[in-house]
């Protein structure tokens, strides 16, 4: 069966430029919204997943869920340090970091409104446990001093955080002596200082979390069991990767669900637009359809031609929308993560899967919008068509 040439289909769209453009623009907007929402939830996920290390284990108080809710006493932390299977650092010490985590208000750049920034007390071991974090500028804080280092996103997003600036909190002045580049992970949104100094300043009796590296990542189940079975420890050990994935879940899912339902609602509008355009296209070409049929093209070919036109229309819309969405990748966003109650900076992340989903979404709009008009075009009788011409 001969098919109607593609060039004929494409030219038809070109002839009705204004209408084509309006319809494609509507679809492009829908695809743009759909893609950016997926990119946003992917960005949050990617940022937090990059935060965890596969062979690191994080221990929190049972049921705490987030570091700020958790509390681990010094004696409990000491027990954890003696667990078997913990990797040793280059100097022979166990790779264990006992960290207090507190939230601190800082004014956001631009709006000046205060937002919570995670303040983590750590040590040189803490830095060694996170190979993705490195110093971008300045130097690391000196142990036992009121010095801090700030993540890149904090320096960018909050007022008064820069190399050499002084932050006032917990009754002390803290000097920012370095900026961290955490490779787009959650640590970019944190400020790090000396663990003991932070506990003193905030009058904390307990750590928030204990992080350690396993010699062998496969050992995790055994270590978890040990922590579970020890009556002195009302704690729970988690793989760091899983812990951070859980932190991203609430926010990423919320944005994902909200965004997808919005995109679906919007797509109804855009599909209606496509249907109207295609009906118009059919109505203005009744004579042509008759001619095509008289020339020997079958009903199926006519159906295919109009469906092809709708698909091409939606493909144009989809590509334009996707192109606009990919431009969003250079935009930095930051919002409060519900799970940690603190600011998290992330970027829109476009993955091939998202691009494919967005294009399929556009094509689906084209098929649904174009099918009924194409069906009607294919069902027209040759005689009626030619009479109309």
């Amino acid at each position: 069966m001969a098919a109607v040439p593609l060039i004929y289909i494409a030219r038809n769209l070109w002839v009705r430029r204004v209408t084509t453009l309006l319809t494609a623009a509507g679809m492009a907007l829908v695809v743009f919204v759909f893609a950016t929402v997926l990119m946003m939830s992917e960005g949050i996920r990617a940022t937090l997943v990059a935060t965890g290390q596969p062979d690191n284990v994080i221990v929190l108080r049972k049921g705490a869920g987030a570091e700020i809710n958790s509390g681990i006493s010094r004696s409990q932390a000491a027990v954890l340090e003696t667990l078997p299977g913990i990797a040793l650092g280059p100097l022979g010490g166990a790779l264990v970091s006992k960290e207090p985590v507190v939230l601190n208000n800082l004014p956001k750049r631009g709006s000046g409104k205060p937002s919570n920034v995670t303040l983590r007390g750590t040590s040189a071991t803490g830095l060694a446990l996170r190979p993705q974090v490195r110093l971008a500028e300045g130097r690391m804080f000196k142990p036992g001093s009121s010095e801090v280092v700030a993540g890149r996103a904090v320096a960018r997003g909050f007022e008064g955080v820069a190399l050499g600036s002084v932050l006032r909190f917990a009754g002390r002045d803290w000097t920012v002596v370095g900026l961290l580049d955490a490779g787009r992970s959650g640590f970019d949104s944190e400020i790090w200082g000396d663990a003991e100094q932070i506990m003193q300043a905030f009058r904390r009796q307990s750590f928030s979390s204990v992080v350690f590296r396993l010699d062998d990542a496969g050992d995790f189940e055994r270590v978890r069991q040990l922590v579970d079975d020890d009556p002195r420890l009302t704690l729970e050990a988690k793989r760091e990767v899983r812990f951070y994935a859980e932190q991203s879940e609430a926010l990423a899912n919320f944005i994902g669900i909200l965004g997808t339902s919005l995109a679906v609602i919007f797509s109804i509008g855009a599909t209606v637009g496509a249907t109207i355009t295609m009906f118009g296209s059919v109505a203005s070409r009744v004579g042509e359809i008759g001619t095509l049929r008289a020339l020997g093209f079958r009903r199926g070919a006519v159906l295919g031609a109009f469906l092809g036109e709708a698909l091409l229309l939606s493909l144009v819309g989809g590509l334009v929308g996707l192109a606009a969405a990919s431009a969003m990748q250079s935009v930095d966003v930051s919002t409060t993560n519900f799970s940690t109650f603190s600011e998290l900076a992330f970027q829109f992340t476009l993955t091939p899967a998202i691009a494919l989903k967005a294009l399929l979404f556009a094509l689906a709009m084209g098929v649904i919008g174009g099918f009924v008009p194409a069906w009607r075009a294919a069902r027209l009788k040759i005689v009626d068509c030619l009479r109309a011409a």
Partner: protein
Amino acid sequence: MFLLRLLIRNAFRHRLRTVLTMVGLVVAISAFGLLRTIVDAWYAGAEASSSTRLITRSATSLSVPLPLSYAQRLRAIDGVTGISWSNWFGGIYVSERNFFPQFAVDGPGYLALYPEFVLKDDQRLAWLRDRQGVVVGRKLAAKFGWKLGDTIPLRGTIFAGTWSFTLRAIYEGADASVDENQMLMHWAYLNETLRARNRGRSSDFVGVYVIGIRDPANAALISQRIDAQFKNSLAETLTETEKAFQLGFVAMSEAILVALQAVSSIIVVIIMAVMANTMTMTARERLAEYATLKALGFSPGFVVRLLFGESLLIALIGGLAGLLLTLPLAAAFSGLAGTLFPVFRVSGTTMALQAGAALLVGMVAAAWPAWKMSRINIVAGLRNLA
């Protein structure tokens, strides 16, 4: 009258196309309304706040508690008429999905400061007498089917362990803006349990102080007095009006709110494109008719009125249907979202904006074709007829 009939006839000449356009409008206008309502719901806490209440919290952040000893010093500050305190409890009822706010409060003081929580006298007394008792909002009780006397277990995230409470009272909001999804428990019970458990450590701490003042005009002055009192102490305070405090929470999700607001405008633009498309097609098909009308002596203005009238008619019918659909849609969404949005109402402003958006869509959609049609050359137009 004649014009109106002509308009209606014209609008429904292409029944399918008109109906499709209207469907698009209904979807767009109701989605626009729903989005605005979601954004409004975010601000509900701030809207419901009272101008005679101040919130004092740690200057560092909300997660840092204040000592209980501040209560007496706060009470002594000039201009303070009432005081209470609360701790965010953050417990989980059965599963994480059943989120609702729980506050451990200083009972008598708290109820005095929040007159909008209306309790029956006998229930109020029953709650105040029972250390383990809780008060919950009407909607929350209805959601989980709780009755007075029921035991409610909560799994603590901040305060470890499983806690069980007895439902002693159910409050109703004095008006529709009051959040009826909260649970209040006794701070004293929480504190005593913690003290027994931790042998004295980490007890006698409160999350925030709620301060009552008589005259809202003095809010700034009294806030300054309070913060000055605790300046350079171990726990410096930050005092702000309840509204500012609530808006602080809203500001945290600002990125999401801005996105929602942008998206709600985008949908109006999309539907404008769809509608403009319809009107352009309509005008193109009727080229010959308009030429005939002009040849008969009708002014270009008449043709313009005809197009605008038709466009507005479609937009208004679609808009009205969308507006009416928003209410059941909002109710359904609120049911799905559960306790996430405690107050979910379609406001009058939203409805006015919806009507405005429909009107705007109708006007803009007709602008280009109307301008073009008013300028058609009669001869060229009539030639189309042949």
